[in-house]
């Protein structure tokens, strides 16, 4: 009986059913498709920023971080949306969304670069799909099999991705990556610590920034970043020589 089973199994396994398809290729396609769907949902709720000067500076920072760290800048897209929400998030398909509320909360370009480097860290470490698999495993499985997820499911995924937290381990990894990315890009990582410390003071207040709910333990993380950066013996040039808050205020 077992022999017969093994024979049928072995015989069938000689047939190439997959023709090069792997979990990775299916996962990549699903991730890209899902990313597009989620971006469309964000676009329905928020207008894209038309502050071209700001967008140009953001593109420069994005390019600088990526090229200094052997990451293809074209493979990661940064989208800036108009919203008072203090938040930035990673969406599947290597997309980073940033709300103008978060930009307005930053005091200089270095702080924004720190946040961006942290989000890129989540992308390079593939945290987003690990989290998607953990939170929406069955839904993803259905999507992989070609089923239409429906707009309600997409909205739900978007809500979870922009309001619920990564694990502490993933946050720690993304912070470590961010420090490495920033240092390699000649950007002072201490500003990421400053941003985290400042945002942590908002915890418990009436308007808790959403970035805090997706990125917990900001105070501890800031302390870790200060500890790491204290070992650095480097001089950094200012990232944006102009007035950052003036740039943010442009229409």
């Amino acid at each position, binding site marked *: *009986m077992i022999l017969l*089973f093994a024979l*049928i*199994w072995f015989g*069938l*396994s000689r*047939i190439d*059913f997959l023709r090069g398809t792997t979990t990775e290729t299916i996962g990549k396609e699903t991730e890209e498709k899902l990313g597009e769907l989620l971006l469309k949902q964000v676009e329905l709720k928020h207008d894209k920023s038309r502050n071209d000067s700001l967008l140009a500076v953001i593109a420069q920072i994005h390019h600088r971080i990526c090229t200094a760290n052997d990451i293809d800048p074209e493979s990661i897209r940064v989208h800036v949306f108009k919203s008072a929400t203090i938040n930035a998030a990673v969406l599947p398909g290597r997309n980073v969304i940033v709300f103008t509320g978060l930009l307005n909360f930053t005091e200089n370009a270095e702080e924004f670069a720190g946040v961006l480097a942290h989000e890129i860290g989540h992308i390079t470490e593939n945290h987003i799909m690990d989290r998607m*698999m953990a939170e929406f*495993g069955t839904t993803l499985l259905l999507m992989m099999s070609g089923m239409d997820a429906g707009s309600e499911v997409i909205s739900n995924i978007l809500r979870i991705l922009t309001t619920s937290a990564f694990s502490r381990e993933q946050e720690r990894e993304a912070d470590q990556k961010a420090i490495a990315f920033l240092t390699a890009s000649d950007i002072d990582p201490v500003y990421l610590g400053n941003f985290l410390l400042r945002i942590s003071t908002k915890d418990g207040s009436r308007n808790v920034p959403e970035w805090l709910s997706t990125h917990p333990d900001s105070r501890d993380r800031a302390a870790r970043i200060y500890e790491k950066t204290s070992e650095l013996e480097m001089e950094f040039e200012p990232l944006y020589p102009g007035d950052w808050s003036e740039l943010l205020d442009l229409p």
Partner: protein
Amino acid sequence: MLKHPPFPYEPPEAEMEKASNSYLMSLIAIMIGMPMPIANLLATGIFFLGNRRGGFFTRWHCTQAMLSQITIFLVNAAAVGWTLYVFFGAGELSNYYVAYLITAALINLLEFIMTIYTAVKTRRGIHVEWWFWGSMTNAICRE
């Protein structure tokens, strides 16, 4: 695959019904059993325990139904486990995995057909011994 050897006695109506029901139990549970293979095994297991003091014909067929369900359970549980490992763990999608799913599906289909056939035959009092499981049942079940 299926044999119809003579049974030591002609089973009464009540035994024929219970013997046939032992196979029907696994069919009723099949809808739940697809994603949760243990459901089929539980259904036949409970029926087996309920009839372990019944007539020999009933006991014999309850045992055969349960033994076949244990095999199917192991095959399906491995399929579900492997699927979870591929999609939620570190497992890779491979030809061995696809081939296993097809083999498991073929065995399930074969078992499904044999179950319906045997349920019908035993209801008429005809003794049906399955290949492999029949011999195992003969070794376990005594008059």
